[in-house]
């Protein structure tokens, strides 16, 4: 079963951290279809967070079709995240590389670029949470 951890200083919304960790586990094959996710109470009992946050993360995963809740039984993994994302990764990496070289031509040094990147990531997750 997946073991959630929180990075409280990251600035990433807690429910998103849970969503990301499930996705990460799916990519790595730690979670497979049919596996049960821990109940809200189990997660809460470990992390001391609001149970609604866990439920929200699970709803998000459910909306993306990754898991399904079975009343009275728990929340189960439906499908895995694998191959597709590898190509996706490569595509994103390419476009990011293009942007970075753009930034360099504009005179930004590595620190500027990192700061800008971090601020965009932070904002994107804070504001457009539903597009994560």
């Amino acid at each position: 079963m997946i073991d959630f951890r929180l990075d409280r200083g990251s600035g990433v919304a807690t429910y998103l951290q849970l969503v990301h960790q499930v996705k990460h586990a799916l990519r790595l094959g730690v979670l497979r279809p049919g596996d049960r996710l821990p109940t809200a109470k189990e997660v809460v009992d470990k992390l001391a967070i609001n149970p609604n946050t866990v439920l929200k993360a699970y709803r998000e995963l459910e909306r993306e079709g990754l898991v399904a809740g079975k009343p009275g039984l728990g929340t189960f993994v439906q499908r895995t995240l694998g191959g597709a994302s590898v190509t996706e990764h490569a595509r994103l990496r390419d476009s990011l590389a293009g942007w970075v070289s753009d930034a360099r031509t504009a005179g930004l040094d590595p620190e500027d670029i990192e700061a800008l990147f971090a601020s965009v990531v932070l904002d994107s997750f804070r504001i457009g949470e539903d597009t994560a």
Partner: protein
Amino acid sequence: MTAGTTALAATGLGKKYRRTWALKDCSLSVPEGRVVALVGPNGAGKTTLLHLVVGLLAPDQGDVTVLGSSAGTTRTLSRVAFLAQDKPLYDGFSVADMLRFGARTNPGWDQDMAVRRLASLDIPLDRRVGKLSGGQQAQVALTVALAKRPELLVLDEPLANLDPLARHEVMRGLMAAVAESGMTVVLSSHVVSDLVDTCDWLVVLNGGRVQVSGDIEDLLAGHRLLTGPAELADGVAGRLAVVDDDRTDRQATLLVRTGEGRPPLDPRWTDRGVNLEELVLAYLRRPDSAALPKPALARA
């Protein structure tokens, strides 16, 4: 948990001690199933508000409705549990006596749950309450409150005077109980960092008045921190609701309420989202600012 019903509603609530109003014109409404953070500086009226909610005090003005009935009546007493500041317990009682106290004074008492909870915390039932550590006393007090099986649990500074581990343990126990029962929780604190990730509704009380009341996510999404040239600040202040305004001769930092979406801004501004602590501090620094509902819509 029924979405959309109100756990706690206050209208024009006021309470005065001798001539000074500890709480004035306090109106708020909290949906059921929420974990509410009541935040404010010392002396803001937090304890007074909580005592009005649990019926220890009667209002001098306005009224407060708890779970649909008046506060402090027989009907509400059995559905609301209260953990007072300093977690009072009878020092001379054994832990088992404290549970018996709860059982004898509450019809809905869940002895099994209380015993199980204390066993999991390794708190011996035969130990005298006065001999327990601060953290253990807090847990016993919380157990007595939880075993009452309340629909609304009110806690006044539950984490004060506890070491970091005990704070975590108390919060963990509280959140697990919420997950299990779906009860509404109202807890006060003046340490905002304790409330991040645990609370989903924020009430800021300042100088006896309610300054902010709303869903924490909505509040965070509805505020942004702008940094830009000082000469543009007045223009922004004219268009957006500025909560906190901090200017040097060159630069201005504005915490603004944007509502839904992102406002169009001059490119010379940088803007970012805010976190709970920044939001609370900004309001506390500016007692005239207020972010009040938007009728409180429950989001189950």
